[in-house]
């Protein structure tokens, strides 16, 4: 017996059936065939060239399917004909907003195979640059978030303050977007004079920026109405789809690869916190990212005070041949877990490189998450999942 049957008396039940019948007649008269909506590949809401094909029933999505491949560059194939030092210039372009963070896991995997460890100073500087690229990446996300909902102001703040961070990265590495600075056994150069003081000043600005975004966006009623309770991804679904980074932590999984594995990096030398959120909705994902940016500025501040002295390059041969073996290193990149599975045959270049990028898994949940939502929510859910096309297609 259905719920309505139990609650209603006979007369009411008849009236209910009659009204249902009237409704269905009306529906037949007003029958609108389902509609297929194509979003992208060139759409401002899609962060690049992602195309989404959505089947709609009125305002609701029946199914939605992201269609990738508009930016596939075949790095796994290209890496097979490159030498190890050349691969970093390729993987720089995977997640182009946090380029330096892409180089680190590959270099660490090669170092693991070679049995080389970078000196403490370069481990420290690596970690600082890694966190700076996270700040540069996520601050753009935070600003862009408003644009998805029609709030134009935050993006100007974000571009202004991200510029300070990019200047720092440029000052240290020479490249604003594609540093190509990490080397097997250390770093290309040491830090320039005056960089540390400048970085500290910028970190102060970035913390202020986070407070501004907190006030402007996260406290905004429209923002909350569009984000809270929308696009909920429960814990077990997030794990099954291999979501990582802030998306996983927003579903209540306390897991951060910076903290939970031992890598020759300097994260364990700073005092910081891994933020999680139990809700798993769009708001939680954005909130976790905001907190992470704050934590990153703290990590950078602390590490700047404790940079050890010493060389920045370990002793490595000029022509790098990596011994035979297989190695896997993944790190907590701005977008999530980014890992490289490197197979070496003792040659100048890798035999096979499998690039596990975060956005590929983060996007693969989209068909599940978009089912049944309203059309405007497609934009906010995709924005909160935060993907970068280069990171999906590779």
């Amino acid at each position, binding site marked *: 017996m259905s719920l309505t049957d139990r609650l209603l008396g006979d007369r009411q039940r008849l009236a209910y059936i009659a009204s249902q019948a009237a409704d269905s007649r009306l529906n037949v008269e007003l029958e609108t065939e389902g509609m297929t909506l194509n979003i992208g590949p060139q759409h401002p809401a899609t962060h690049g060239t992602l195309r989404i094909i959505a089947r709609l029933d009125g305002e609701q999505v029946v199914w939605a399917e992201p269609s990738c491949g508009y930016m596939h560059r075949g790095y796994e194939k290209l890496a097979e004909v490159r030498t190890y030092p050349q691969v970093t210039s390729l993987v720089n372009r995977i997640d182009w907003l946090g380029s330096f963070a892409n180089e680190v896991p590959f270099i660490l995997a090669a170092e693991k195979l070679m049995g080389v460890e970078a000196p403490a100073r370069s481990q420290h500087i690596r970690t600082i640059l890694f966190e700076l690229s996270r700040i540069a990446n996520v601050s753009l996300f935070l600003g862009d978030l408003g644009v998805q909902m029609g709030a134009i102001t935050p993006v100007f703040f974000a571009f202004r303050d991200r510029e300070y961070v990019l200047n720092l990265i440029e000052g240290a590495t020479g490249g604003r977007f594609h540093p190509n600075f990490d080397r097997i056994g250390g770093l290309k150069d040491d830090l320039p004079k005056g960089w540390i003081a400048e970085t500290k000043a910028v970190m102060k600005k970035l913390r202020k920026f986070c407070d501004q975004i907190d006030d402007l966006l996260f406290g905004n009623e429209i923002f909350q109405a569009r984000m809270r309770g929308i696009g909920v991804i429960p814990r077990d679904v997030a794990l099954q789809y291999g979501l990582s980074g802030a998306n996983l932590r927003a579903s209540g999984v306390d897991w951060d690869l910076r903290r939970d594995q031992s890598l*020759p990096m300097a994260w364990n030398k700073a005092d910081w916190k891994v933020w999680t959120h139990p809700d798993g909705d769009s708001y939680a994902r954005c909130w976790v990212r905001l907190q992470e940016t704050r934590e990153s500025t703290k990590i950078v501040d602390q590490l700047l005070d404790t940079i050890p002295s010493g060389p920045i390059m370990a002793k490595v041969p000029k022509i790098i041949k990596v011994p035979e*073996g297989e190695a896997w290193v993944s790190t907590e990149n701005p977008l999530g877990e980014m890992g490289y599975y490197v197979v070496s045959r003792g040659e100048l270049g890798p035999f*096979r490189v499998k690039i596990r990028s975060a956005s590929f898994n983060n996007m693969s949940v989209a068909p599940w998450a978009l089912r049944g939502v309203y059309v405007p929510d497609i934009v906010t859910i995709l924005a909160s999942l935060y993907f970068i096309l280069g990171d999906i297609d590779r």
Partner: protein
Amino acid sequence: MPVLPLNEKENPLSSAPEVITDVARESLLAEITAALGDRLAASHLRPADDLWLRVRTDAWKSSMRTLRDTLGFHYFCFLSAIDWMPSPFGRGEDDPTEPAPVRDTTIRSGYAGGGTRMQVFARVVNPATHVGVFIKVDVDDAQPVLESIHDVYAGANWHERETHEMFGIGFDGHPDLRNMYLPMDFEGHPLRKDFPLLARMIKPWPGIVDVEPLPGGGVEESADEA
């Protein structure tokens, strides 16, 4: 997790070659061996690094299900394949005017062994202990088809699509094996080693020729005129 000094030679503390023991992974391997039984074909443990398993081809899906349900590997990291045959084109740096060199294309598998040219491998992680394992499985050369595991790990759906397109490995029971990246009428499977990298084929590798001859005359002639 024990912190492993990667460069033992330069580490003053490790004068003797220290045997690293990895108690956590060793007990995990014993647990996995007990749970998988004869479905486990081989395993390879690198202490303080990672754990590789190889399962029998016909037990691929059931092994993944056991790993998820019994052993708690709930987090799906990735799935891909390796073509163990060395490329017959080398690094694409051959001089096109010379006869093509003969290359050794004997198939040699990696950790945890294997008997076929193609292997599918996946990584799953236990979110409680943060320890992950690699699972490899041989794929028959003549009929490269595996059972799909998209209903064990939902995230495998896209990864299987990618592997199908790049390596030509079929996945039985997959709902939708359309290409993700390439046009549907694309011929060949780009990540197989016998698929040439066309960018290196159509234009000779610039490292071969040092001096380009001037148009309309050889290098020596123009040198004489000067």
